[in-house]
C-alpha cells in the first residue's frame, strides 16, 4: 500500500494523521474533499442557524456530501436551485484548498435521491409511450444532474434512446425510437 511507511515519519502522530487514510491517491483526495466541504457547510449552517448533520461518503470516484436534518427546505429551494448553487460554491471552496477541480455531489435531506427516483419513473413511463406511439417525446427543461438520470434510465430500455437539445437553462431531454 504505502512505500514510505516508516521513513521520515518519526516526528510523531500529528504528522502521520494527514496521510493515514491514504488507501490510494484518488480516494485520499476524495476524503479530503469531503472534509473541506463539511467545514465550509457546517460553518454556514451555524451562521444561518440551521440544524443539520453532515454525512460524508465516496461513491463512483466522487465525494458525496449530504446535509441531513429537518426544516432544511430553504437550502433546497425551488426545483433544487439553491441546492445546485450551494453545490457549486462548495466545489469552488474545495478547489480553492486542493487546487484540483471537484465533482463532489451535495445533497440536502435526500432531495437528490427522491428526485432521482421521480425522474427514473418519468423516463421509463415516457419511454414506454414512445415505444407504443413511435413519436419522439420532449421532456421539460432539466439541469445536468437531472438529464443524466433520465439518460441513464432510457439507456436501460431497448428500442429507445435519448438526446439533449437546446441551450441552458432550457436544455431538455428528448426520448425517441432507436432505429
Amino acid at each position, binding site marked *: 500500500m504505502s512505500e514510505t511507511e516508516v521513513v521520515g515519519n518519526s516526528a510523531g502522530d500529528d504528522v502521520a494523521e494527514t496521510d493515514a487514510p491514504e488507501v490510494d491517491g484518488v480516494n485520499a483526495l476524495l476524503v479530503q474533499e469531503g472534509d473541506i466541504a463539511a467545514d*465550509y457547510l457546517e*460553518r*454556514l449552517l451555524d*451562521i*444561518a*442557524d*440551521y440544524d443539520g448533520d453532515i454525512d460524508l461518503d465516496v461513491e463512483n470516484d466522487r465525494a458525496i456530501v449530504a446535509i441531513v436534518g429537518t426544516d432544511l427546505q*430553504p*437550502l433546497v*429551494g425551488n426545483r433544487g*436551485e*439553491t441546492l*445546485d*448553487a*450551494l453545490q*457549486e*460554491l462548495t466545489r*469552488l*471552496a474545495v478547489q*480553492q484548498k486542493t487546487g484540483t477541480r471537484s465533482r463532489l455531489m451535495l445533497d440536502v435531506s435526500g432531495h437528490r435521491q427522491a428526485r432521482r427516483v421521480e425522474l427514473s419513473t418519468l423516463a421509463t413511463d415516457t419511454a414506454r409511450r414512445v415505444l407504443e406511439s413511435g413519436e419522439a417525446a420532449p421532456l421539460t427543461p432539466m439541469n445536468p444532474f437531472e438529464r443524466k438520470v433520465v439518460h441513464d434510465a432510457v439507456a436501460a430500455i431497448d428500442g429507445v434512446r435519448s438526446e439533449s437539445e437546446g441551450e441552458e437553462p432550457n436544455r431538455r431531454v428528448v426520448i425517441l425510437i432507436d432505429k
Partner: protein
Amino acid sequence: MLEEALEHLIRGIVDHPDDVQVDMVDNRRGQRLEVRVHPEDLGRVIGRNGRTAKALRQVINGVGGKGIRVDVVDVDRR
C-alpha cells in the same frame, strides 16, 4: 446574519480571505449586500458569465435574504 453568511461563503473561495468585506446597504430601493474583495479575487467571486455571483445570490436568497441583491463592487474603478 446575512452579511456573515455571505462573508463566509466568499472567504472560502478566494485567495485573500482577509480582504473580504460585506456590508448591508439599506435605501429606498430596498436592501442590498455590497461585496468588496481583493482585486485579484474579483474574477473568482463573479465567475464565468457571472455564475459564481449568481450562486452566491441564490444561496443568500435561500437562507433568508429573499429579494436582497448582492453587488460585487469593482474596487479598481473607484
